[in-house]
């Protein structure tokens, strides 16, 4: 991975995977994608993406797939 994910695309992918409640809160140094129904949030800044996931392995897999599609790679 060599850059932050495209957050709009990430939300689209998450909604497509069934997490329709995904919503974005933007801040000064990045943004947070909330998935309240899944007790999960994704903090994105320029250097790192940190997923705090209290849901099961299925959602984590969906998040990994969505990130793989939206994070720039070499």
């Amino acid at each position, binding site marked *: *991975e*060599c850059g932050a994910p495209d957050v709009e695309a990430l939300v689209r992918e998450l909604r497509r995977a069934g997490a329709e409640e995904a919503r974005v809160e933007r801040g000064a140094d990045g943004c947070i994608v909330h998935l309240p129904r899944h007790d999960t949030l994704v903090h994105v800044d*320029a250097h*790192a*993406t*940190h*997923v705090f996931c209290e849901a099961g392995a299925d959602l*984590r897999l969906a*998040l*990994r797939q969505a990130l793989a599609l939206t994070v720039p790679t070499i």
Partner: protein
Amino acid sequence: LCVKDNRLSLLDIDEMCDEIGINRHIIRFTSTVRFEDPGPAIKTAEKLQNLLTEKLEGWTITISEGNISVESVLIKVEGEDDSTKNIYVSWTNQDEDLGSYILGLLQSMVQYSPMKE
């Protein structure tokens, strides 16, 4: 593997990114396991370390100030002496297999069996 100063060199991924001027983006996952284990958090951490040493034979497991690490997987125990402990398990995207294995191990341990000293 890259060509550096007209020589083939084997670099780790961080060195490689520095060489070609790319800011590596780290993806990390964190999940929480809640565990009834009265006593100091450090004691719970030591029990977890023993469990992981038994289950992850051949892996280097270290503990520092109550934080356990295996490769990029970090395990931190928090909670007052007499209360439920929160065990935070965190790992990078590249270590998904190891991280999810350890998370599953701790979840099943909490669910099905009391932890031994």
